[in-house]
């Protein structure tokens, strides 16, 4: 099931040179075992996202994820009265997304959690924090002077701080951590590492933004294809 991904992204020259012996040795192994090859780099075999549907990990994550997410919400919302706060709670909620990605596939999780959500969390959190800080400035006070916040009935100082933690810090941290996770799972846009291949030349030849966008779009389309594969594999079961 996961071999399709690696075959799609293999370099054609690599397929041409050493196809038969090592590939047959790999196919005899169960999918969770790495091929025994001493001292050899195997990066060309594992360019795709390594993923196996585990009957242990998937039910475990199904059970644990709601509780872990609720714990993250509790740490965020109850940070004023117990240890924790937006930073810790946001990290726990992002870790729940990591767990889901490990159990059900990174590509499927990436499709489920669109880029818009990740960007909206990070940018919206930063803007909300700045907004809570700037409202007292607009009312003639200092930056983050909570007692000038126009919060009716409730204590403006306490709930201003809660607002900073809940709608400011926690979304920034969870959004940025999820974004880092998906970015690292993708790797370089050129798929070639540091400055190899022609995409590096096209990046160097000077300020052509359309070229870079085209390269990025091509990579995104390829990833979309593999992601739909893993989604369909999950549906078949």
């Amino acid at each position: 099931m996961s071999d399709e991904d690696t075959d799609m992204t293999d370099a054609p020259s690599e397929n041409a040179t050493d196809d038969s012996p090592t590939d047959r040795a790999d196919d005899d192994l169960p999918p969770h075992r790495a091929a025994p090859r001493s001292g050899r780099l195997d990066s060309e075999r594992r360019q795709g996202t390594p993923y196996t549907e585990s009957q242990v990990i998937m039910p475990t994550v199904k059970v644990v994820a709601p509780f872990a997410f609720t714990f993250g919400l509790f740490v965020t919302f109850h940070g004023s009265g117990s240890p924790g706060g937006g930073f810790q709670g946001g990290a726990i909620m992002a870790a729940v997304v990591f767990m889901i990605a490990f159990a059900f596939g990174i590509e499927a999780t990436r499709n489920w959690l669109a880029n818009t959500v990740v960007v909206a969390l990070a940018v919206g959190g930063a803007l909300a924090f700045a907004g809570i800080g700037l409202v007292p400035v607009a009312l003639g006070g200092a930056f983050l002077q909570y007692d000038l916040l126009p919060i009716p009935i409730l204590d403006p100082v306490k709930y201003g701080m809660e607002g900073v933690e809940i709608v400011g810090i926690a979304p920034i941290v969870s959004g940025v951590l999820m974004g880092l996770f998906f970015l690292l799972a993708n790797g370089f846009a050129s798929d070639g590492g540091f400055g190899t291949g022609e995409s590096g030349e096209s990046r160097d030849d000077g300020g052509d933004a359309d070229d870079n966008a085209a390269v990025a779009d091509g990579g995104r389309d390829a990833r979309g294809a593999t992601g739909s594969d893993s989604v369909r594999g999950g549906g078949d079961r």
Partner: protein
Amino acid sequence: MTALAPAVVAQVTAIEASLLAFVVLTALATALARDVLAAVIVFGAYSLGMAALYTFYRAPDVALTEAAISAGVTTVLLLVTLAKTSRIDHDAVFESVNLPAAGAAGLLFAGLLLTMGDIPAIGSPDAPVWSNPEVSQWYLAESYAQTGVENTVMAVLAAFRGFDTFGEAVVVFAGGIAALIVLHREAFA
């Protein structure tokens, strides 16, 4: 140092000693493991031990951060990065010790150990937290009255040092943007 050492040793409980031994052993295993995957996994165990140690020393906010960020998120990010890079099969479990590097690390360790005598014991009235009560005790006494928040750590971070916290949040945000730039991408997901 000589006067302080017996008192410190007498206060170390069994659970504390076992946590310290666990942390030291996992740190050594991280440095010496030949396989990078094994080093990453042992490093996660080291972070979990540090989180337990922070809890033991009554710093639960730091322990939560250590457990969530260092043991959880950093381990996952390192694993994802390893999956994108190459991995070499080894016969040996542990790296052969590089003697110059071990000597440099030992010298640094010895230098740090020399400063241990000046660190006050846990709960000692000579600790700067207690010997400067006009600073630390003011926050403990006034944070609830001025902010209405029971957690003094959060009161300091979000109210008294709110501008610094805003800077930290912007640094986290800028870190995500920098990762986009370094990896030549225009979208997170």
